């Protein structure tokens, strides 16, 4: 069988206000409630609600043969409650079908793994608790922020009870001649690894509506035909995994409804399930399905799913991002020493990786995806507001 594994990332950050030096010490709001609520309402309307409805219909129609996985961050759940409770309810309906796996991650969608192992563990436990509280779901597959992964991560995750599988990017420089369709083991051979098949995942997530792309328009038949011809190995009885990992906002937000993305998704399962050697699976199924010796893969350096480089440069590539993250984690430690829970929560909201993404200059001139996602005029402005916000927290700590 070739199992198609859909995993969708659901995340919204708490965006900052245009926080200036003169706002420091005035108890001014650090987070832009209006902007955050507007974004949440817009994305719920364009993406979360209609896509959840569609997936629910598909799951019901195929009676267990169609499955998807989600990773939903703590900051997204909080903002559903604040600005769009019906969205949270619709996720609950989906998860109640039993065909949806929830993945574990950091509550705040942070880069804490790279800076502070204790803080990382705190955030992972917070997220697991949240999934249990909101959905009654116990997570057993882990995905780190932006699919950032390296060997050391698997050591930490292995120590946490319950996690059996980690998912990450199928980076060419690690895979080399190997195929991302197989289930692998981490370097210590104690966890499963599933790797994103980025060519096909990105055909949907990034290229679907791109008229300059030679394959435009992407039809269900064409896409399933590609999948059908990926390999012959599944015909030998091996269970393979085609991992289509993407932002959930692909549906209706990055690719608008008018591009036909919803129709594509509506008809995709039918075409897949009409072929006897194709099916759907969840990441957690890998433990049960892998029916061959899983090769172990070593990731000495961190990888991620971002940009062409698939490394950390989108969040930590320039001096502003580095200075900002060093300042944050130093402050988090000082806040913990003092035991101020309110400040700790605010600092953690500032640990969300998006804040660093806004400071990225890599493609800023080209008006690329970074600019699309940023609520600020420039990386410099994003940096200035962020540093000022940290300063506000620090001054509150000193008082």
């Amino acid at each position, binding site marked *: 069988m070739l199992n198609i594994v859909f995993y969708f990332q659901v995340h919204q950050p708490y965006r900052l206000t245009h926080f200036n*030096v003169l706002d420091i010490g005035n108890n001014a709001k650090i987070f832009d409630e209006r902007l955050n609520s507007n974004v949440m309402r817009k994305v719920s309307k364009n993406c979360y609600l209609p896509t959840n409805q569609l997936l629910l219909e598909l799951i019901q129609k195929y009676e267990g043969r169609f499955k998807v996985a989600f990773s939903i961050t703590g900051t997204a759940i909080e903002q559903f409650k604040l600005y769009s409770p019906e969205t949270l309810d619709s996720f609950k309906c989906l998860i109640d079908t039993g065909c949806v796996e929830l993945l574990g991650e950091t509550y705040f969608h942070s880069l804490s793994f790279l800076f502070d192992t204790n803080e990382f563990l705190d955030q992972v436990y917070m997220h697991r608790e949240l999934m249990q509280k909101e959905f009654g779901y116990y997570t057993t597959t882990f995905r780190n922020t932006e699919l950032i992964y390296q060997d050391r991560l698997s050591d930490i995750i292995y120590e946490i009870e319950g996690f059996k599988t980690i998912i990450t990017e199928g980076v060419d420089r690690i895979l080399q001649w190997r195929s991302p369709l197989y289930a692998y083991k981490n370097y210590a051979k104690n966890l499963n690894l599933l790797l994103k098949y980025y060519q096909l995942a990105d055909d949907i997530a990034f290229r679907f509506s791109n008229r300059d792309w030679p394959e435009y328009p992407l039809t269900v038949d064409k896409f399933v035909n590609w999948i059908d011809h990926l390999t012959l190995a599944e015909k030998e009885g091996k269970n393979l995994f085609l991992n289509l990992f993407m932002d959930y906002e692909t549906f209706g937000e990055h690719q608008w409804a008018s591009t036909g993305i919803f129709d594509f998704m509506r008809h995709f399962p039918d075409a897949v399930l009409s072929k006897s050697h194709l099916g759907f699976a969840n990441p957690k199924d890998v433990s049960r399905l892998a029916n061959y010796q899983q090769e172990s893969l070593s990731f000495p350096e961190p990888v991620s799913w971002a940009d062409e480089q698939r490394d950390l440069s989108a969040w930590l590539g320039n001096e502003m991002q580095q*200075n900002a993250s060093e300042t944050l984690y130093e402050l988090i430690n000082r806040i913990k020493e003092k035991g101020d829970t309110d400040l700790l929560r605010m600092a953690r909201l500032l640990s969300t990786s998006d804040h660093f993404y806004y400071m990225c200059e890599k493609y800023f001139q080209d008006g690329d995806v970074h600019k699309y996602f940023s609520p600020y005029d420039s990386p410099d402005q994003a940096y200035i507001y962020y540093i000022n916000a940290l*300063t506000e927290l620090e001054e509150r700590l000193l008082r």
Partner: protein
Amino acid sequence: MKILMFTWEFPPLISGGLGMACYGMVKALLSQGIKIDLVLPTKELVYFPLRDEGDADTLPAVFIEPEKQIEYTRRAFTCLSERLEYIGVTTHPESYFNMSEIAEYSNLIKKHYELSEVTISEELELLKEMTAHLIGDEDLIRKVQEYTLRANRFAKILEYDLIHAHDWLTYPSGILTKQISHKPLIVHIHATEFDRAGGPGDPRIHKIEYIGMTYADKVIAVSQYTAQMIMSRYRIDSGKIRIIHNAFTLPETNLNNKKRIFIGPTILYLGRVTIQKGPDYFLDMAAKVLKVHPEARFILAGTGDMQRQILRRSASLSLKNRFLFTGFLNRKQVERILQAADIYVLPSVSEPFGISPLEAMSYGITAIISKQSGVAEIIHHAFKIDYWDVDLWAETINHLIENPEECRKIGIEGMKEVQRIQWDEAAEKIRQLYATTLSEFSEQRVE
């Protein structure tokens, strides 16, 4: 005595020290009975007949076009800012521009030097040269062209004894007006292109500065430093130059009223972030001080073409959140940041005068200023250091952080000193210069 005054900045139309200097000067001159018709780069074609001290704040305006004047007087404005907005005085001088009139510019200038009664060939040469240099497509140059075009109208319809023009942007207007009216011209040097550019600068602007100073009857320099500069770099006849130091008008709010933002010692740079002002030296001293006093905060207040570079360097030096950027600040915000600072630094590479330290000192902030500044000539209760001596700047800041009581005392002494330096004194010198220029000028005419 009535003066026709050209300036590019006047509150609320300000981007730097020029506007505040003109304001203090005009107010003090008005109080001494001088009448001033002020011309600013406004959107509408207006001038400001200033007669009493209070006029410097209310800015009564007169439209040149009678129909517009009627419409203007009929209109009821609820507040000053609404009225100023109507005539196109905004907080940024950029709002002024009218493409349609630009084409007329070169024709007009040509006509004036060809048809006027100028007989002295030297003057003719100068005018020709200036026209040749006031050419360019940049926004600013175009604005200067239009401003000059308008000066033609003011020169003819207004009555005045003397023309006073501030900085190069208004020199073409001053020259044209003198040409038309045969009244004496005083040009006022607040900064030269060498100061602004921190290097050779724009050769067109040098030429305009040179021609303006050459064509003027008198040149006011804001410091000995500037006088030296215009003698050595522009070869201006020293007999024409008068040094009149700028002063500072104290704000009316209670100044001895510290409102901290930061718990730690706060060191402030306040000014444009350009090479002239030495923001890179500010960063260097911050990096040194923060090694000893990580509790200090350095605030870079202002904007400019070097901000991007300074921002990145401050991050790569890992100065954490100890080196902050305010961006552009309006008047109120400047006052707010001054109330929050302990130490003010002005590490300018070249500062003809520098009014900002006087303002900072008026808030009781201890000032450390570059020796390469005009203001260093007149104040005593401040530290003066060569802009490049970063170690000494850092040591001095460390010393002040470690001795807060001493820092406070110097601040108070500085505040008292600034209160004595008032515009009245400078205005009196300007008034005397007006009088002597007029009498010299009429003697020349008689001869």
